[in-house]
Each structure stands twice: as structure tokens, then as C-alpha cells.
């Protein structure tokens, strides 16, 4: 494969995954409003219309975008105007970057070239994601600091404390996954989940690491600062780090939120729900445990796999919304207690148990 083609393929994959994240993010702004409405016996946003057509408020996505772009961009009187402007960009940038290592399909063969359905099959994919999520804290803390506003600064500090605290649990739970699948590559992890347990159960992370899944979900939501862990923002009550942001800069923070949500969904899918794997679907077609087989060609298999990935990610986005509109916010002390006194010991125990079992089984 020559270099030019390789670059072209990489660019194509990048565009695909970015478009996927951005359009799903845009859709999520609508889903967030509509889902909460339906959960709360309301109707939700439904007034924006084009030529009298309302389509259940879908045009609110456009309306919101137009609003965000046309609002006055108010910049506070701060000596750090540049940092103030760059902070939301950082937030969204690192969130998008993480998608590079998410495998959304196995691989396809075009003109004799095998193309992996993943922007970059880095063999330390998990570490890359960790790194990105750690750097993401900069966007928040810089926003709080450069706003020249005490409330924003306090919000930023809360965010830092929260993200650093939960990062430990976040990482430790994945150690279990790494121990089991014996790799740091995301694609490898997904592939490893292709087998069957006891002959019928897909070998998904959720069945191997049930506690890990719970801990991971909790830590991930805390990492992305969404309710019930939205203490850094607390829009209406405690004022967050982006209080001094308006217009599209504020919009970027909002959007980064949604992107991170998709990222979490994608990670949960990848680590615990078999990524692009469809149960019993092998490279050549279905092979059910009771013996039936159903042959499919590569293209159909790959399409099914990408579709499975999309469906799984969408479901976890929905689940996060459900959580966000169900639980009340934690207090900061509760948050810290939960992080350090509950989640951390539990994840340590989980890691230990996994290690022991892996050792024992391996022997």
C-alpha cells in the first residue's frame, strides 16, 4: 500500500469517526431535551419549525446552533484573554482525539488492502485514552482560572479535584480488563471478546468484570462531570467554571460534554460489551451454539459489526441520559467520600481478585 493511499484512508477514517461523534453529539442535544421531557410526562421542545414543519422539535438543533453563533460573545475583563479563548477548544479537542483509538469495526478489504476500522490501532490505546482524559482537565481548570472570577475559579478547582480523584478508580478498573485480555490495544481487546464463555455466553467484559463495569461507569460519569457528579458546573445553583463564557465558547463546553458522553459510551461498549462484536457472528457468518450456521459475505459482516457498534454506543448514551435525569446531584463531601472511601478500595479489591483468578486460571 503506498503512502498516499494510506494517508487517504487515514483521513477518511478520521472524517468518519469525527462526523459520527459530532452528529451524534448534535443529536444528543435534542435527545437530552426530548428524553427528559418524555421521562417527565412533558412534550419537550417542539416549536422550532421550518415552513410549518416541526418534526418533533428536531429543528431545535439548528435553532440552538444559530442561537449559539449569533449571541454576543462576552469576554470578561481578564488578563488571560488568549487562555480564556483556548480553554473550550482544549476541552473539545482532547475529547475528540480519544476517538482515534476506538475501533468501530474489524477490518475491510478493499482492492487487496486490509483496512482496520479504527483511526489508529495504537498498541497502547488504553493508555492513550487515559492520557487524553487527563489532559482534558486543562480545558476546565484553565477556563476557571482565566475567567478572572472567583466562582469560576472555585468551579475549576472543584473540577480538578473531582477528575483527579476519579481518574484513579477509572484506571484501576481497567487494569482488570487489561489483566484478562492481556493487551493494551483496543482492537485486540475487542477481538478477545469474540469467543464464547461456557459455550454459549459471549466472552464480553461485562460477564468477566461485572463489578468493574459498575465502577467504570460511575468513575466515567464523574470524569465527564455529568449529573449526578456535575458539581464543577452546577449551572443554576453553585455556578461553575464556565460562568464567564457565552456564545459559541459556551457552546463548545456544552458540546464537549456531549462528545465525552459518547466517548464514555464507546469505551463501555469497547471494554465491556464486545465493541463491534455481534454475538455468534464470526468473520464468515453466524455460528449459533446449537449448531446452526448462517454464512454471510465480508461486507455484510462488517456492516453488521459497525451497526452493532453504533447501536451499542447509542444505547449507552441513552442510559447515561436516563441516569442524568434520574439522580440528584451529590454534595462535594459525598463525592469525595464515594471516590476515595468506596470506589477506590472496591476497584483495588477488584484488581486484586482479578489478578489472583487470572494467575490461578493461567496456571
Amino acid at each position, binding site marked *: 500500500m503506498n503512502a498516499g493511499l494510506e494517508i487517504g484512508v487515514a483521513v477518511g477514517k478520521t472524517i468518519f469517526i469525527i462526523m459520527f461523534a459530532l452528529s451524534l453529539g448534535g443529536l444528543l442535544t435534542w435527545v437530552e431535551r426530548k*428524553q427528559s*421531557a*418524555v*421521562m*417527565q*410526562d*412533558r*412534550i419537550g421542545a417542539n416549536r422550532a419549525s421550518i415552513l410549518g414543519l416541526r418534526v418533533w422539535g428536531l429543528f431545535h438543533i439548528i435553532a440552538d446552533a444559530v442561537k449559539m453563533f449569533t449571541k454576543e460573545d462576552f469576554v470578561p475583563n481578564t488578563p488571560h484573554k488568549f487562555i480564556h479563548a483556548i480553554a473550550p477548544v482544549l476541552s473539545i479537542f482532547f475529547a475528540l482525539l480519544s476517538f482515534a483509538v476506538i475501533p468501530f469495526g474489524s477490518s475491510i478489504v478493499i482492492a487487496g488492502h486490509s483496512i482496520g476500522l479504527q483511526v489508529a490501532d495504537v498498541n497502547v490505546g488504553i493508555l492513550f485514552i487515559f492520557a487524553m482524559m487527563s489532559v482534558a482537565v486543562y480545558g476546565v481548570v484553565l477556563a476557571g482560572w482565566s475567567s478572572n472570577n472567583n466562582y469560576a475559579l472555585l468551579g475549576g478547582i472543584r473540577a480538578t479535584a473531582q477528575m483527579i480523584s476519579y481518574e484513579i478508580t477509572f484506571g484501576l478498573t481497567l487494569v482488570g480488563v487489561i489483566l484478562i485480555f492481556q493487551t493494551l490495544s483496543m482492537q485486540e481487546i475487542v477481538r478477545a471478546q469474540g469467543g464464547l464463555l461456557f459455550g454459549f455466553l459471549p466472552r464480553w467484559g461485562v460477564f468477566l468484570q461485572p463489578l468493574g463495569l*459498575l465502577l467504570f461507569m460511575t468513575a466515567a460519569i464523574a470524569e465527564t462531570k455529568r449529573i449526578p457528579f456535575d458539581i464543577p458546573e452546577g449551572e443554576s445553583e453553585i455556578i461553575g467554571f464556565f460562568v464567564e463564557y457565552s456564545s459559541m465558547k459556551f457552546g463548545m463546553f456544552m458540546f464537549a460534554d456531549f462528545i465525552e458522553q459518547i466517548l464514555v459510551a464507546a469505551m463501555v461498549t469497547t471494554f465491556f460489551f464486545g465493541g463491534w462484536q455481534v454475538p455468534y457472528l464470526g468473520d464468515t457468518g453466524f455460528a449459533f451454539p446449537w449448531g446452526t450456521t448462517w454464512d454471510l459475505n465480508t461486507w455484510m459482516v462488517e456492516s453488521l459489526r459497525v451497526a452493532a457498534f453504533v447501536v451499542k454506543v447509542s444505547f449507552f448514551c441513552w442510559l447515561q441520559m*436516563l*441516569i442524568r*435525569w*434520574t*439522580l440528584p446531584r451529590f454534595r462535594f463531601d459525598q463525592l469525595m467520600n464515594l471516590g476515595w472511601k468506596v470506589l477506590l478500595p472496591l476497584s483495588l479489591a477488584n484488581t486484586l481478585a482479578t489478578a489472583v483468578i487470572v494467575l490461578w486460571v493461567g496456571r
Partner: protein
Amino acid sequence: MGTVRVIHVSERRRTLTFWERTYLLEVFRGLVLTARHFFVNLWRHSLWLVGVKSGPPGAATFQYPEVRRPQSPRLRTLHRLAKRPDGTPRCVACMMCETVCPAFCIKIVAEEVDDSSIEKRPKSFDIDIGRCVFCGFCVEACPEDAIRMDTGITEIGALSRDGMVLNIETLLSLPPKSERGDKPVDFLQQQLVQ
């Protein structure tokens, strides 16, 4: 209505069981509850969408300009001045409402009438709705049952502050809701026409 349930504070602040304190189960129950609402409502919305409207609607809210919330008969809405059978105002300009009004938004000027069984009547009667807090004290204070808040009009607006001041002619012309029925009054329109 039936029996009244007395809730003691101590009852509300009962100690939590172990499972409740782990929070996990409660989170799950909460999610089940909200998810149930989600799916039931989604189902109802879908039924309505395809034209099956016999079941309950998916939302408890009113689509305001098109659908109006039923008003309680006791609701305090825009004021009106009641009339005697001969069309003259019942009000005798006793200033009780003006005195009691906590927002100081009623201004009455009295004048004498020749009819010695009435003696006094308002020459002008202005209510600045822009300042009114809809407390209903004026209605409560009126010894003649002359000022009432039963027009059912809740959409009140004007394009200027002066437009929010209703004069005696307007107040006398407004019908009670019982006479108007559900026919909406576009109040802004009416103000603009004047």
C-alpha cells in the same frame, strides 16, 4: 378527598435500611421508574401519532396557545367593574379598594350624583395592571361587590406602560367569564384598538 394523612416529621426522617444506604439498589429502582415513564409515554405518544387517541396522552402538559388549562372558578383574573341593571357602575367610589391595594395601583376620582339613593360614583377609575399583584384584596374589600376578578382574562399585555392602565370604560366593558364562555379575548388586540 377522604381521610387526611398526617405526616410527622419523624416519619419522614426514618433511618435508612442497609440496602438503601448502599444506594446502588435505589439507583436501580429510580432508573426503572424513569425508564418505565419513558417507555410508557413513548408508547402513548406513538399511539397518538398514528391517530389512536383513545388512550391517555403521553404528556401531562398543555400546549398553551392552542390548548388552554381549565381555570378554577376562584382564579383571580383581570378585574372588571360590575354594573347596575341600568348600566351605571355599581361602584360608589368608597375608596376601600384604593386604600387596601398593597400595590397602590388603583386611582379613583369620586363625583356626586343627583340620585340621593346613590349619592356618589366614580368619575374615573384607573387600575394600573402593570403594578397589580393580583392579590384580590380589592375584591375582598369592596362593600358593593362592584370590583370583581372573574373575567378569566390572564393574558394581559400592552405596548407601553400607559397601555397597562385600564380606565373605567374598559373595566365596565369587560364581561365575566361566565358570560363570555370559553371564547378567548385577545386583550392586547383590544388595547391596541382603543
